[in-house]
């Protein structure tokens, strides 16, 4: 499962377990309009940390938090990108 699919499936699960069905999970969905409150988003981030082994909110130097689902997914895709171990490689 890709990172995007994992994020969306967990998003959906947390939303369903909170009994907060909301709008379709599209890239332009504003997170605060998604049906998840702060606690729901916090639970989602914890579940994703356990599955993907990354917490981009803590691990990276984010200056502005994500506003849309697309930005939220990008954050995980960037954090989950495998790092090249070759010497001299900037990636």
């Amino acid at each position, binding site marked *: 499962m890709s990172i995007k699919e994992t994020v969306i499936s967990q998003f959906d699960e947390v939303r369903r377990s909170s009994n907060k069905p909301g709008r379709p999970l599209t890239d332009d969905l504003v997170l605060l309009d998604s049906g998840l409150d702060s606690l729901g988003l916090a639970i989602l981030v914890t579940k994703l940390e356990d599955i993907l082994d990354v917490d981009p909110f803590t691990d990276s130097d984010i200056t502005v938090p994500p*506003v849309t689902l697309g930005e939220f997914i990008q954050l995980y895709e960037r954090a989950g990108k495998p790092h090249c171990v070759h010497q001299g490689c900037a990636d």
Partner: protein
Amino acid sequence: MNALASPIASIRDALISAGCLRCRVLCGATSSVAIKTLLHGSSLGCNHAGELSGRSILLTTNDQLAAALALIELDGIASRIVICPPETTPEHFPSLIGKGSIDTVVSDYELPKYYSLTGLSQVRCGSTIRPVDDVHIDRRPTEWVLLSSGTTGAPKMIVHNLTSLVAPIKLATSPGEKLVWGTFYDIRRYGGLQVFLRAALGGGSLVLSGDTETTGEHLIRLSKQGVTHLSGTPSQWRRALMSPEAHRIDPSYIRLSGEIVDQAILNALRSFYPKAAVGHAFASTEAGVGFEVNDGLAGFPAAILNHDTSVEIKVCNDSLRIRSNRTASHYLDSRNGALVNGDGFVDTGDIVELRGDRYYFLGRRNGVINVGGLKVYPEEVEAVINRHPAVRMSVVRPRRNPITGSLVSADIMLKDASLAEQQSQVIKSEILEICQQSLAHHKIPVIIRYVNSVGVAATGKLSRHDA
């Protein structure tokens, strides 16, 4: 910086002496009130506030604006006001009424019929002002009783007076400066009450949050009122920055407190609102406002401990202790123990660590978990989990989280550790169901792990420290 004129007889007297009430308003989610109208009017459903002279009042409202108006009217008249925060449920009322020697309930909603049979007076309050005749009322000091979660779920009743509540308020004011205070906090808790008192006594207007409005709607209202000073917990600020409406406001001062403030949220706010001064403060309902940090960095400078100010701060056994005229005087229920130690210091229970020339907060000594500014006592959650007949023991701990600071996690030891996977999954669902029936949403464990043993310290108590 100007200290408020002290002592202040009552909020109402301070408003009168402040003069220049023109244009100052209290804005709720659905209505606003010009402060000036309150001096010749009442929001209470009795002839005038003087009828409540000397009463011991339980104030419970759905609407923050109704609470704000009632507080302005009742301070200096009532002998005691017990302020119920929004999560106070009717099941707590009998205990609060008994411990607070309450004779009058002031509320903006219909109380259950039971209360009309108890002999308690009931007075309605609201968010509209009707004119009343000016009547001379003798002023008296009012006890302000704030509620804070307790170990068993029953709230602790913490006694302040107006002097201790306003002691931290020092305002930098320039002639002609328009002050519009805003808060993500609820003014029925200590942090929000501080903002309310700053606005009421220090000048300016105040924009309150609404129970049902979204963060975006609140930000739009804050923007329309031209908010200049805005306060909230780190979790509330993180949520605000996730709103597309965050760019609408342009505050000159941003303040955070109520949770551990990390460098990431300070950097994010500085980047998003480059014109704003960003500060954070340490405060608790018991200790009052301890200190403010305005250097843009998380933690606090160790030099604060040696400052010769009205607030004495020391670190004993790694926990922060505070002695000042801002602290509460006592718990109303003596069974909660002494609020102040023999030496006059309040042990905040907040554990700090010295790194270089700065202290950093690590968490709470008694294991209290702070979920987005709301306290969770592990013992309360463990007691609920342990109700399940298959559970031998459980230990509840914080799990660090970048959105709410912490979440609740539970390690559970079953009586029969050899249960099949399917059976243990069923038990997990049943435990969660019990938690959902008995606990507020933020107290329900997010992570449940089965363990073969739980740590017990030499004292015989559960070891709550992370492995």
